């Protein structure tokens, strides 16, 4: 079941694109961001929020508060120091302190109000809409 995603990604890329690893932190360089801006805006945005306290609300109405540990290209989320918002309704979650949340089941990610640089986000969105 193990499959190196980079191998898959390279076959999709055109021969003229730089073969930069999407998951590398070097991708934070502006050139890489500009080139791969399509589909990467929220991934880049969440990467900047790593270490902040967020509340993830899932499609099954479960809401989990925790520190954002990591995120990936599918917007899967790993949280640490988690606690469930309505603990009594979900007794099975009592001893869960770290969890992996599949991106496809997230409804909302509630952020700290000072975690958002609105202007930067607007600019990035406009760039993506234009260049994507």
């Amino acid at each position, binding site marked *: *079941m193990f499959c190196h*995603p980079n191998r898959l990604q390279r076959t999709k890329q055109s021969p003229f694109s730089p073969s930069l690893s999407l998951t*590398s932190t070097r991708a934070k360089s502006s050139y890489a961001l500009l080139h791969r801006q399509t589909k990467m805006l929220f991934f880049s945005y969440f990467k900047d929020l790593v270490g902040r306290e967020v509340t993830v609300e899932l499609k099954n109405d479960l809401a989990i508060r925790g520190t954002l540990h990591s995120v990936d290209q599918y917007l899967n989320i790993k949280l640490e120091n988690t606690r469930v918002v309505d603990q009594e309704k979900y007794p099975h979650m009592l001893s869960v302190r770290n969890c*992996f*949340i599949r991106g496809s089941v997230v409804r909302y990610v509630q952020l700290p109000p000072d975690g958002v640089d609105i202007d930067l986000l607007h600019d990035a969105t406009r760039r993506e809409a234009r260049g994507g």
Partner: protein
Amino acid sequence: MSWAGPDDFYLSTSLASYLDKKLLVLLRDGRKLIGTLCSFDQFANAVLESACERVIVGDLYCDIPLGLYVIRGENVVLIGELDLEREELPPHMTRVSVAEIRRAQKAEREATDLKGTMRKRMEFLDLD
């Protein structure tokens, strides 16, 4: 799931850190599976060893043993690491047998159905 390169060790969302750990897996249909993670892939498909399903009805619970399970990733909601030093369930909950939990599940299902039919019958009253 990203593959961790040497730079990405702290940024990886790989399930590798959960290997051989006792996990709670929540599925889309509401089931809770508990087991040890044997392997996984980029779709969050997972293989759980010594898996059991924890059925909870009110204050009653039961662990039904399932053995070796392969879970398709699209059904996975959440994979949580169970902290062995903490109580997995609140102390007021009691463990019961499979037969009893099935009875409790049936009773809960019937109560929900009854609520549904009663609501349907009251709808014509337009009380709202």
